């Protein structure tokens, strides 16, 4: 089961990253598939939690740098086949069958996708229709690398918290935070692909998601969100004279952080109440 979880994690990420690197209908389908595979991941994880099986979010690095989409699609296809084979190790027969059925459809659809040139790794650092100064381009590049990892980290942290919580109030908040981070990761990933600097986020250390003190994590998280707001504001200022559209996008991300902070404060109050009520 542990290998199954790791392989599903890797397949989810490669499918998502390939979605960033692709265009049009292919991108939409790959996003849908990545969401389906992420749900597989959470179901497998839930099964392991209920069975009391130890697991973590360790995985191998995922090489994706290529000039042809076909190379990535073939590699996803290979992973899908391997995963389908690994499903024999799934101790929940019905879950295994459900995942296998999805994988067969995904595999068939991947085979019909066109092999096209990929520019997501060409390092051009240019956005369509926008000319940024060197300084603004550098600031945007650093921001995208830092924050794309951060969003991936948050998805995994809140997913782990949700997998180990039976509290409906908290799980609602965790799910919103996962969805918000997925949206941010997709926005940043698409921008990185357009700039030719797409990279798979690095693996996460266990101590980041196997959290001993959730209240402290939330307090630190609120501070980090406040810092992220400031980074968005600075970036918006840096690009404003070159692109009103880009500046507005980072203002939008900035104001979304307010909502995250409110949710984290709600969660914190809830944890404090739980501690007080015993």
């Amino acid at each position, binding site marked *: 089961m542990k290998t199954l979880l790791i392989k599903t994690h890797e397949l989810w990420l490669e499918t998502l990253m390939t979605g960033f690197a692709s265009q049009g209908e292919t991108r939409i389908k790959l996003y849908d598939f990545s969401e389906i595979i992420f749900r597989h991941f959470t179901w497998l994880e839930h099964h392991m939690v209920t069975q009391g099986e130890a697991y973590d979010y*360790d995985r191998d690095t995922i090489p994706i740098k290529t000039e042809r989409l076909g190379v990535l699609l073939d590699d996803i296809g290979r992973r899908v086949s391997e995963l389908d084979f690994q499903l024999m190790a799934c101790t929940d027969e019905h879950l295994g069958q459900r995942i296998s059925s999805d994988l067969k459809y995904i595999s068939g659809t991947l085979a019909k996708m066109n092999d096209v040139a990929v520019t997501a790794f060409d390092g051009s650092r240019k956005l369509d229709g926008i000319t940024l100064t060197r300084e603004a381009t550098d600031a945007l590049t650093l921001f995208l690398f830092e924050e794309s*990892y951060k969003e991936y980290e948050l998805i995994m942290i809140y997913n782990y918290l949700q997998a180990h919580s039976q509290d409906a109030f908290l799980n609602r908040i965790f799910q919103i935070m996962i969805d918000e981070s997925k949206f941010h990761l997709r926005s940043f990933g698409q921008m990185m692909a357009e700039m030719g600097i797409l*990279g798979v986020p690095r693996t996460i250390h266990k101590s980041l998601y196997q959290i001993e003190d959730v209240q402290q994590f939330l307090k630190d998280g609120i501070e980090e969100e406040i810092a992220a707001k400031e980074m968005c504001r600075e970036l918006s200022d840096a690009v404003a004279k070159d692109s009103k559209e880009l500046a507005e996008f980072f203002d939008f991300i900035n104001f979304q952080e307010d909502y995250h902070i409110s949710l984290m404060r709600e969660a914190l109050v809830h944890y404090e109440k739980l501690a007080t009520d015993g």
Partner: protein
Amino acid sequence: MTEVDADLIAHMSDPKNYGTLESPDAIGVGENPENGEKVIIYLRVSRTEQEPLIEDIRFQVIGCMTTVVAGSIVTQEAKGITLSVGEQLVAATLGMLENVPPEEAACSEMVALSLQAAMDTYRHKQKDPNFGTITYKITHSCSTEEKQ
């Protein structure tokens, strides 16, 4: 602000030696006591040479991208060198800290100290196989405000 070039992008998009080693000979940690950020270095040391040699190295970061880049650069240089040359690499890295911005100094110091911690852990483990993991704390602050 940091100038971005192709080398920096390569380290950010695909950090070299990132991850863990299975059954490492030693682990060392560099930690920022201000914010809990950490670098963890895993070493595989060859004992066939007259002097112990860093056969393989991996690192993990709980921290920012600047630390990841520093880890990628330092571990590339550390791979394949003896422990005594490793000491020189640590000393050279620490010697450069006064010439870089505070936030970069803290990150580089954390990487250098984690390598030092891993090498020191290895030496202790030669005498006591049950010896744990050494953690060294950095002295530079990555907060620019405190420096002003």
